């Protein structure tokens, strides 16, 4: 028994044409929900790139007092490296600190010129394996005795440490909110698309109830009867997904270069593999919505 694929495609296309207003509604809602998925994926991608670049800059600086014993500094350094939260420790001498300062302040020469003796302390720059653990690590350092011996301000250990905890926290809070809003919107649009597909398939079933009755009568198998309707839902979703992908590409082409121009210090570029991933996700999400929506309609309206 050869199943005729051409038959299913022909039937689905006929249904689509017969009910094109409803089908268009389904396509548009799927398109919008997938577009939102796409845009939030791109936004999420850009934000996480930004967060990563900021995170790279998050390190703990331990300021050392002038004349701290070298062996004590080395001991602290060794202790830090033994900690699993620490990725690297970098010693910055007073001279290096001054060099850096001069470089950063190159624009305001009067400040640089007025420096007679070096006011800057030497420091240890601690890079962490996970930037979110920065607070935890700072606490550990403050409790270390060697640290208290060598730090710049033994009377106030807090002042001898510098880290960008607040920036990181704020960024994480921001991305979390964005993510939640995105998920809620996408869920709502997905529900609307399901309802639309459900309705188009219901109309298609109604328009074809005579054929369906005869198919059942002469013994067409259940899947043979269902397949064109499932396929119709999937075709609608695929069209929606294709439009969404094209729109995301257009947005990327139109907006990202300007964004990159406006924010030159942030990495807002999207790699090709991320775009491929995006396309795959959208197509899969579309097919899933199509199958669930039409499957639901079939369960409710098509008694086989």
């Amino acid at each position: 028994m050869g199943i005729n694929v051409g038959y299913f495609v022909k039937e689905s296309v006929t249904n689509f044409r017969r009910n094109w207003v409803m089908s268009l509604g389904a396509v548009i809602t799927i398109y919008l929900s997938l577009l939102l998925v796409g845009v939030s994926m791109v936004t999420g991608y850009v934000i996480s790139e930004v967060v990563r670049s900021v995170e790279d800059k998050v390190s703990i600086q331990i300021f050392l007092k002038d004349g701290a014993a070298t062996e004590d500094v080395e001991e602290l350094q060794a202790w830090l490296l033994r900690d699993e939260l620490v990725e690297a420790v970098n010693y910055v001498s007073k001279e290096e600190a001054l060099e850096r300062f001069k470089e950063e302040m190159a624009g305001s020469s009067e400040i640089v010129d007025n420096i007679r003796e070096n006011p800057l302390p030497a420091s240890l720059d601690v890079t962490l394996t996970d930037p979110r653990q920065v607070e935890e690590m700072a606490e550990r350092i403050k409790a270390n005795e060697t640290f208290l011996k060598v730090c710049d301000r033994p009377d106030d250990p807090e002042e001898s440490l510098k880290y960008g905890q607040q920036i990181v926290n704020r960024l994480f809070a921001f991305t979390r909110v964005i993510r939640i809003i995105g998920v809620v919107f996408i869920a709502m649009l997905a529900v609307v698309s399901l309802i639309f597909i459900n309705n188009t398939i219901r109309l298609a079933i109604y328009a074809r109830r005579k054929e369906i009755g005869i198919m059942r009568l002469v013994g067409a198998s259940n899947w043979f009867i269902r397949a064109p309707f499932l396929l119709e839902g999937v075709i609608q979703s695929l069209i929606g997904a294709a439009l969404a992908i094209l729109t995301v590409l257009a947005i990327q082409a139109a907006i990202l270069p300007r964004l990159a121009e406006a924010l030159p210090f942030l990495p807002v570029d999207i790699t090709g593999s991320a775009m491929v991933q995006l396309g795959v996700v959208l197509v899969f999400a579309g097919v899933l919505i199509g199958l669930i929506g039409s499957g639901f309609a079939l369960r409710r309206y098509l008694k086989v």
Partner: protein
Amino acid sequence: MISMRGVEKYYTPDAPALADVNVEIEAGEFVFLVGHSGSGKSTFIRLLQRELLPTRGQIVVAGQDIVRLKNWKVPYLRRNIGCVFQDFKLLPNKTAYENVAFALEVIGRSKHVIRTQVPEVLRLVGLEDKIGSYPDELSGGEQQRVSIARAFVNRPPILLADEPTGNLDPATSLGIMSLFNRINKTGTTVLVATHDREMVDSMRKRVIALEGGHIIRDQHRGVYGYGD
């Protein structure tokens, strides 16, 4: 070929549509099912098609216990049962040929099979000239012939007909009945539910009479037999 034992069907709990039905129909028999409206004829037919499940009892059709039959196997049961109805159930946008071919298409028959069997069965029902006509270009009798051709094109061992002549005049009805007779002669078991007294009396086949959901008479070479 058809066996019903202790079959009962209740739509509402107080009044049975069918009760205590015990029937054996052998392969190759021609049986009339007669009775007033509401006597249970249609329920009888729909139980055999497994459109309905009985409230109680056992039904065996073409060797299969259709009460226990799994849902996904029902289509395969129906390929063994041709069905003809009072309202023909033809698709208006398809020609006579396409209507018959549709029945083979949707059970996955090859184009070759369709091209040979459809003209043959249309010749059998006497419509070789009307192959390209749409249902609204055909008379009632011709439309019913198309629907019989569709029911028979797959050569099922059983043919069920529910009031097949209900919409037709007596002369046309006679032609339809003789067509059933010819189909029966090929070895097909034929069960016809009907009101048509003249028809039943003239054919002298087995008659099962229903009243209020009970079989009140089961008679070989019988007549319609109600005094109304």
